[in-house]
């Protein structure tokens, strides 16, 4: 391979097709989820089919309450589908498992455990065969990866939102899952922190040779395009379905500053806006 003197993109758009030819990591087959409520049955999502390849980053986008998190829940195993099956790494999903690391919407750190313990307890419970020295090493390595080693003894309550999210991400990476599921991971962060978290996430994904499959729920169009290979746009619920899947064929590594001027980016952005909004001005009534 030739080394480019200036920072030319390492990947080309044709890399995208290589991803497509990789083995399937997640197969969602004809999934419906219905909840029983006092007012009757509420169908959150209906007849969803989606296949995600290994190493792919996919964003699920849609309006609030459209069932993105429910779909995510069926992949993580936290939600049982009413109909259909989900396969993860070739196995039927029956519940949460160590092959799928979850980053929850509100960080979900245990507030009485230090940053270190929050990660260690997850590592301890997933790697039952390892010695405690090995488990401590994994914990340390992952905390250093997100630059939180100096804060290891703090309680979650003493951390900023961005730091908490880094702990949650480090915890998910620490169990070394082949699939990472992020449920609105950056929703509660301010725009500046959000931007640096995107870069951090991609850095971690790169360090692992882009082998991890990442599925994330978001309602941020720019975030979805910057991070993903495909954006799954969902209809409004109830009984939400997939409206359209938009391919993001932008070369990686992507540059946050430059990418917005790329005509291909603008085209995808417009397409997603069109899918998500009916009105674009007060005159569009």
């Amino acid at each position, binding site marked *: 391979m030739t080394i480019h003197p200036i920072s030319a993109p390492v990947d080309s758009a044709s890399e995208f097709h290589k991803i497509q030819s990789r083995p399937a990591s997640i197969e969602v087959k004809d999934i419906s989820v219905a909840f029983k409520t006092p007012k009757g049955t509420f169908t959150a999502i209906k007849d969803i089919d989606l296949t995600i390849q290994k190493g792919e980053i996919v964003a699920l986008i849609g309006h609030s309450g459209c069932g993105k998190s429910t779909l995510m829940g069926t992949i*993580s195993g*936290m939600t049982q589908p009413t109909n259909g099956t989900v396969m993860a790494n070739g196995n039927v999903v029956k*519940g*949460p*498992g*160590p092959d799928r690391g*979850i980053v*929850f919407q*509100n960080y*979900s*750190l*245990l*507030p*009485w*455990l230090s940053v270190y313990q929050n990660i260690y*307890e*997850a590592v*301890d*419970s*997933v790697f039952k065969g390892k010695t405690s020295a090995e488990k401590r090493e994994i914990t340390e390595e992952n905390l250093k990866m997100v630059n939180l080693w100096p804060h290891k003894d703090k*309680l*979650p*309550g*003493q951390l900023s939102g961005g730091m908490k999210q880094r702990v949650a991400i480090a*915890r998910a990476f620490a*169990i070394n899952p082949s699939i990472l599921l992020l449920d609105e991971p950056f929703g509660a962060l301010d725009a500046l922190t959000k931007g640096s978290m995107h870069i951090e996430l991609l850095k971690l994904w790169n360090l692992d040779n882009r082998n991890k499959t990442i599925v994330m729920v978001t309602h941020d169009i720019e975030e979805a395009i910057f991070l993903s290979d495909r954006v799954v746009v969902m209809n409004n619920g109830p009984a939400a379905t997939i409206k359209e899947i938009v391919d993001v064929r932008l070369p990686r590594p992507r540059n946050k500053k430059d990418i917005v001027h790329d005509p291909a980016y603008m085209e995808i952005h417009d397409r997603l806006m069109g899918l998500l909004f009916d009105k674009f001005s007060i005159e569009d009534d």
Partner: protein
Amino acid sequence: MKKLLNLQTYLPLLFGIGSTIILIGAWWGISLLTNSEIPSPLMTWSVFNEMLATPFYDYGPNDKGIGNQLVSSLIRVFSGFGLGSLVAIPLGLLIGSSKTAFRLINPIIQILRPVSPLAWFPLGLLAFKAAEGATIFIIFVTSVWPTLINTAFGVASIPQDHKNVAKAYGFSRWKYITKVIIPFALPHIITGLRLSIGVAWMVIVAGEMLSGGVGIGFFVWDSWNALSLEKILSAILIIGTVGLLLDKGFDWLQKRFAFA
């Protein structure tokens, strides 16, 4: 300098003095109205000082210092309360985490909880054949409920988020209990213990009036028999102060174990 002159700094002290004046004033008023049948604060004060001068004297079974009386009451209270907590906390953890256990045990709690502690006393006598055992038994029976109910409530109110973490990372049952349930419920458990020790301290006086022997409750009854109202009023002040200190102790524990 400005801080020293600020009224805010002295406000707690001023209020403290104010409430002392109200208490003593009301007491004095009642004393005057009853022609000193209820002894005045001044008369009580001299007896009180006398009692505190030699708190640990022991002139036989019916004449012991106030310190001795207090210590034996406190030992009983902590024995009954300790045993009660040993039952209440594990049972509360169980009821809080299992709907079936809750449905089976809750009706029993609801029936037994309002029963006056003294109603249990004969059963205690029957079981232990001694007043000592019976007194500890009624403390046990009455101090169980607040801890039990608070523990169960604490466990039952664990947020879904915390449960999700345990589920997502496959925590074992033991890890779930020790790293999620107990730490989350701990502030609730301590609140329960705080209420329980308060109830236990109230019950001990009544219990010892029945059981006799030695103890602060017996001391009150014995002073009544000796018609020393000064001693009774002094004992009331002491009981109140010890109760306050017990409460403050658990208040401190509560703050110590509150997580952010």
